[in-house]
């Protein structure tokens, strides 16, 4: 297994609507990542694209359409897709391109243009469900989150107030992110009093749909040593998918994230993630999801994430900073492109480039995670300085 380093990253603004085409968004993020790594497209051996449903951008096989903007012109170009898990899964695919020896430099680009679908991305989410069992009931995407959140609250006796603290923290953290769409100083009451969408989910519990793109440059050890004196190493990768039959699972715990995390920790030789992880970027499309995923990532015991949050442990200056980027809740949720606030953020944090968002604990080991499909898929990546 060859060592793989991250040597550059880039991202666009996350906004409800951007003027750029999907290709142009890919280009902007990719170009930024290449510039930051000090290389040009000529130096890139392989390109990996991560993008979620074609139904957002409104282009069948959108990976093909996006290939030139992603730098795939006349190169080996590969698209992977694991629903919302794509934002961390695409860099994992990039990792195996380099670790296998197939590429010395691999450019990973993630893109989503959710504003194409009208009047709301909900129209695409309507088709993620089983056509025979679920779709005849005309479900809304928020329903499954509401049901999962309810189950989590029920099993661990967690209050809405405790969960709202996550939204407060992340939107506040996002004030320091130049790309943020929904950064704000808000209170727990603001969350609880925001519009009720599907109990127990209020409007401010949810991250917004966004347009955006992000990119990473991955390099083999030899290349990295030539190109940078500040590499960040991908030391563990893991991914796992649970059964399609989501109505047969107890939703209170994301077993698939735990499986993925164990795989990644094993590879990274981490025995005690609670102690060894200095900074975490779990997937937070909803505020309870950060808690759910902290537990899935084994960063705390089951049911303990709300307590850590209440105690301030997960604040940027806490013992375990969680979503210092501002996460999806604060920066925005262009599904696959959330790589920008997950994998890219951990790279920036570990390489000391996170500026105003830099966590003060001199982090050496970080973990990022994404989650997708029908509450079913977990992707986990551990990175080290």
């Amino acid at each position, binding site marked *: 297994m060859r060592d793989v380093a991250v040597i550059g990253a880039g991202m666009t603004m996350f906004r409800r*609507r951007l003027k*750029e085409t999907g290709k*142009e968004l890919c*280009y902007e993020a990719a170009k930024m990542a290449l510039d930051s790594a000090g290389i040009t*497209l000529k130096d890139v051996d392989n390109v990996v694209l991560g993008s979620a449903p074609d139904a957002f951008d409104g282009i069948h096989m959108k990976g093909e359409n996006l290939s030139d903007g992603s730098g795939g012109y*006349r190169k080996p170009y590969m698209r992977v897709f694991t629903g919302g898990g794509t934002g961390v899964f695409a860099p994992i695919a990039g990792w195996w391109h380099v670790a296998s020896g197939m590429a010395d430099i691999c450019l990973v680009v993630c893109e989503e243009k959710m504003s*194409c*679908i*009208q*009047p709301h991305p909900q129209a695409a989410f309507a088709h993620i469900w089983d056509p025979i069992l679920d779709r005849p009931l005309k479900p809304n995407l928020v329903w499954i989150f509401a049901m999962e959140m309810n189950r989590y609250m029920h099993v661990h006796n967690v209050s809405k107030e405790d969960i709202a603290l996550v939204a407060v923290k992340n939107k506040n953290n996002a004030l320091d992110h130049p790309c943020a769409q929904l950064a704000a100083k808000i209170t727990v009451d603001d969350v609880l009093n925001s519009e009720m969408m599907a109990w127990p989910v209020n409007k401010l519990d949810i991250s917004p749909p966004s347009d955006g793109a992000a990119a990473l440059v991955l390099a083999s050890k030899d290349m990295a040593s030539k190109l940078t004196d500040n590499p960040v190493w991908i030391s563990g990768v893991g991914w796992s998918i649970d059964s399609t039959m989501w109505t047969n699972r107890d939703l209170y715990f994301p077993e698939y994230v735990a499986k993925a995390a164990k795989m990644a920790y094993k590879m990274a030789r981490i025995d005690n993630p609670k102690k060894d992880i200095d900074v975490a970027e779990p997937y937070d499309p909803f505020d309870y999801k950060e808690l759910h995923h902290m537990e899935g990532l084994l960063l705390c015991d089951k049911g303990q994430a709300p307590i850590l949050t209440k105690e301030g442990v997960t604040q940027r200056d806490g013992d375990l900073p969680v979503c210092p980027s501002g996460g999806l809740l604060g920066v925005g949720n262009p599904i696959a492109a959330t790589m920008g606030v997950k994998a890219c953020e951990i790279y920036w944090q570990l390489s000391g480039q996170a500026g105003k968002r830099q966590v003060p604990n001199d982090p050496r080991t970080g973990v990022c995670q994404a989650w997708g499909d029908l509450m079913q898929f977990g992707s986990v990546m551990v990175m080290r300085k």
Partner: protein
Amino acid sequence: MAMLEKTTDVRALRHWEGDMEADYIYTTGIAGDKFFKEIKENAKITGTKCKKCEIVYVPPRMYCERCFENLEQWVDVSDKGIVHTYTICNMDLDGSKMDKPVIMAVIKLDGMHGGIIHKLGEVNPENVKIGMRVQAIFKNKKERVGSILDIKYFKPVK
């Protein structure tokens, strides 16, 4: 195969109908917006030039697909060019036979790299040839909305 039980009564087999339909609006992008506004206002075809690769892209791009340079040099391109290849379409999108064949072509405008895709008009299918010179026919200004369809078709240059 592989299952322990399968019905032999074809009437018991069900299918379930549905769709994946939605409405879409695509922004034409940083380069596309400028291109279409130029067509709409001035009936003029423009491109962007990569100085490094010596390529003029039509439709214009904001970046060179080959070297990834940001393209900022805009150039006017001729509305005339030659047919690089063409096909005579007798089948419509729904699989039905067309009342009248449509001729699709790749047209290499003078000064551009590659060729744009459009229809040919005012010509019989049997008279079309690779290498034939053609010219863009625009809609009237008040009908133009900023779309590739602001060009009605290309017709042979007399």
